[in-house]
């Protein structure tokens, strides 16, 4: 990486500003399905993204050729694109003071996966897969671990330098049960890897990966014998592995500043949130407190500097239900200030890898714990549904009309948990849903989760984000079920 910096400083053309972001990433996936090991797959990725600001234009060029010649070609191409777009850009990029990073970050990694052999990884995953064979109704069992080590060096024309390293651990466990003409899937934390954190084997410990197989399998069997969730207006208790999706879709995306500025309108969409709302808009009930939290230990999108080099610091996004600031980085903030001078933001301009330019992302976005115990929340519900683990998600292009489904539901009657129900779905409108937040769980209900699969941007980027939340109760929600 030092040689990349040396090469970059030697290869850079005259420009108002330039940056080089060099990324290397090693991944490995190990999986077992129905006790049969699937072949291991690993990847070694490496490349650089160069940016050049010249005469107000901005050009990016990425290459997997990290030699001096490759860097020079990338700089030349980026400069050509900056020139071609000069005076035809949405913003004069010369006018924004780009960050001057100086520092680094290293994710926690208490029990490095590198200390474990491939055979030992298979032994663990085989054990977890086998442990889910608890009932004749089980027709499919899958378990796996996905590890990633990423190293990134970011250097700028004015001497900025940020070097960051991450270890990511993602476990997966899903079981399919079939009986009575129905089939149900239950997973440990969602079929799309909701339990994902930074770190090594200690993440698997926190996920209870080694011991969770029987629980997941039993719940799959429970579901296949359960009745459908009833339809109607209910109080709903959303557990953290559904709250993460609710936060993601109806707080995270609508608050992305590039959506508000219109960049995403051809693809991901716009937002019902407008710049005038910040500082005054009642986004949710007074119980709603949301933070941008890049400093949460081991959370999936923790970092010290974003991909424009801005230092990441925790900020209130929503406090007491009032919307305070959008999720937008250096460039978006500068663009937005041409429309509203006092708009703030957070350092969250990120790219999924070396081959995509950075855009506004949500990173770690968390609902802060409240004061209610889980028992108090359940006791407060006369007729409601507790829902766990997202299985379906859809929301409109303004991030308002949503419909979400969960794997596992449990009725709550007269303040007590009652029977399990399957296919619990609910729908609502973001602008009013968060105002129906009526109780927020305490720290004992708080879980740190996330997703490796947040998609956005043109060209498309799928990126890691973190969401931590307590259990939350919402009043008078439209609930329904499936057709079967």
């Amino acid at each position, binding site marked *: 990486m030092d040689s990349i910096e040396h090469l970059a400083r030697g290869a850079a053309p005259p420009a108002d500003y330039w940056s080089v972001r060099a990324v290397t990433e090693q991944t490995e996936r190990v999986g077992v399905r129905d006790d049969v090991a699937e072949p291991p797959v690993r990847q070694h990725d490496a490349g650089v993204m160069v940016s050049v600001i010249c005469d107000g234009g901005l050009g990016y060029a990425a290459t997997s050729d990290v030699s001096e010649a490759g860097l020079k070609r990338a700089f030349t191409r980026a400069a*050509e694109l900056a020139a071609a777009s000069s005076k035809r850009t949405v913003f004069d990029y010369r006018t924004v003071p780009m960050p001057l990073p100086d520092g680094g970050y290293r994710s926690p990694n208490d029990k490095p996966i590198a200390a474990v052999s491939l055979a030992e990884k298979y032994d663990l995953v085989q054990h977890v897969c086998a442990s889910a064979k608890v009932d004749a109704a089980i027709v499919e069992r899958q378990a796996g671990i996905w590890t990633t080590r990423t190293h990134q060096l970011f250097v700028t024309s004015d001497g900025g330098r940020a070097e960051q390293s991450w270890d990511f651990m993602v476990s997966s466990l899903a079981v399919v049960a079939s009986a009575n003409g129905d089939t149900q899937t239950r997973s440990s934390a969602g079929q799309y890897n909701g339990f994902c954190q930074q770190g090594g084997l200690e993440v698997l410990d926190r996920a209870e990966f080694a011991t969770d197989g029987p629980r997941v399998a039993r719940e799959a069997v429970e579901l296949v014998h359960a009745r459908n969730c009833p339809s109607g207006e209910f109080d709903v208790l959303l557990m953290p592995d559904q709250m993460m999706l609710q936060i993601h879709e109806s707080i995270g995306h609508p608050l992305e500043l590039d959506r508000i500025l219109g960049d995403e309108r*051809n693809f991901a969409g716009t937002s019902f949130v407008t710049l005038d709302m910040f500082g005054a808009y009642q986004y949710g009930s007074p119980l709603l407190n949301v933070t941008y939290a890049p400093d949460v230990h081991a959370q999936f999108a923790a970092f010290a500097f974003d991909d424009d080099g801005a230092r990441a610091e925790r900020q209130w996004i929503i406090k007491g239900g009032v919307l305070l600031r959008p999720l937008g980085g250096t460039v978006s903030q500068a663009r937005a200030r041409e429309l509203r001078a006092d708009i703030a933001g957070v350092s969250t301009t990120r790219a999924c890898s070396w081959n995509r330019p950075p855009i506004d992302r949500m990173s770690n976005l968390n609902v802060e714990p409240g004061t209610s115990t889980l028992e108090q929340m359940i006791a407060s519900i006369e007729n409601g549904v507790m829902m766990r683990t997202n299985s379906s998600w859809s929301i409109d292009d303004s991030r308002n009309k949503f419909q979400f489904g969960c794997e596992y539901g449990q009725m709550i009657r007269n303040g007590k948990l009652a029977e399990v129900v399957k296919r619990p779905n609910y729908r609502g409108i973001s602008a009013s849903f968060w105002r129906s937040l009526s109780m927020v769980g305490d720290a004992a209900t708080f879980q740190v989760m996330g997703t490796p699969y947040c998609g956005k941007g043109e060209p498309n980027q799928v990126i890691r984000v973190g969401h931590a939340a307590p259990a939350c109760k919402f009043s008078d929600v439209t609930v329904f079920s499936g057709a079967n």
Partner: protein
Amino acid sequence: MREEFDKLADTVCDAPSGIDLVGLAFAAETSDFIRFNHSKVRQATHVEQRNAAVSVVRGQRRATGSVALSGDTGRDTAALLAERDALAAQLVLVPEDKYLLLPDTVTSTTRVSDARLPSAAQVIDAVARHADGTDFVGLYAGGPVVRAFADSRGQRNWHSIASFHFEWSVYRGGDQAVKSSYAGTAWDEAEFARKMTRAREQVALLARPRKTLPPGEYRVYFTPVAVAELLTTLSWGGFGLRAKQTGVSTLIQLHKGEAQLDASVSLTESVSTGIAPRFQDDGFVKPDVVKLVEAGRVAGTLASPRSAKEYGVAATGSNSFESPESLAMAPGSLAERDVLKTLGTGVYLSNLHYLNYSDRLACRMTGMTRFACFAVEHGELVAPISVMRFDDSFLRMFGTGLVALTANADLSPDAQTYGSRTLAGVTAPGAVVDGFRFTL
């Protein structure tokens, strides 16, 4: 680049002692991505990327590793040889895979499609000239994309497609917009200008007072793009052999004979007419056509090599997700000029957005209307509608609910660029459907 790949393949696919098979799956692209907002450039990006995945097999054991490549044959060969040998050494730690299936024939293929592509500056100039005065937002993506495969048996597959895909929206205000696209292999600025003129005309229709529909059942017309959205969702777990065998297929009711689609519905995976490669990363070559639904009834599934071995059927060369890459719905007989007349009173749906299953086993889908959707009365577009959420079963929509399919089927190229530009697409006609359920 073909020559470089052949050199790499000749060296890397020379199986070392004790290795039964070496495979090499190669991917490369040189792309310009020009992103626009408010008719101006937001981000202009050039990407040159290459990587190759090398696989080694001994008996029933396999390991695969991919490496980013520089384009320098010497350095790339060394990197791939190092990875190959490391994987070979690792094989002793890999459990046997009883479902490992390897190709039993050597089938080499070549497809090369060149293009006349614009420079980034030409694209930026064209937008400045023809989108001036509009609120234009979108992405131009263009350049050559290569997929290739080689193995130690001597198979060589090369698939090189140069193309561009420009997709944009012209906004009237708020969430009201018209979506357009221009894709092909020969850039013609005059054609882009014509499409922009058409988009301006359509945006004018959005100026009429907007109508908010109450939830309920509506007769609707899905454009070919909207049908492609539904079929793309159906491709997510609908056509795979493994999903069928484990009972989670979203078309399980068809497989069980509990439901059937309208007799006019036929679906095929048609790689011979699409832009997707004919081969996959294990070296299996796909048949020209795989029948999936014929005359409303299930006709087949897509089988990856693993599923084929596990369930004892022939592999269709499918990817590991068992999802189609060149899905085609057969057209019907409704002439385009008769679409609105046949619709009568209902809703014209140009685009759908953010689809997902609300009940997978019932093949029930939810999603949103998006862009230029109109209320229609007596065969006339009368008002743009506010966005609506729908929740309805594909089996019902294209079963008892299907009124007619249009006589023309359009290719909707897959515009996705996650990681790399996608070589896939869906070909579909438009469809008039009765009783489509809006819920919110």
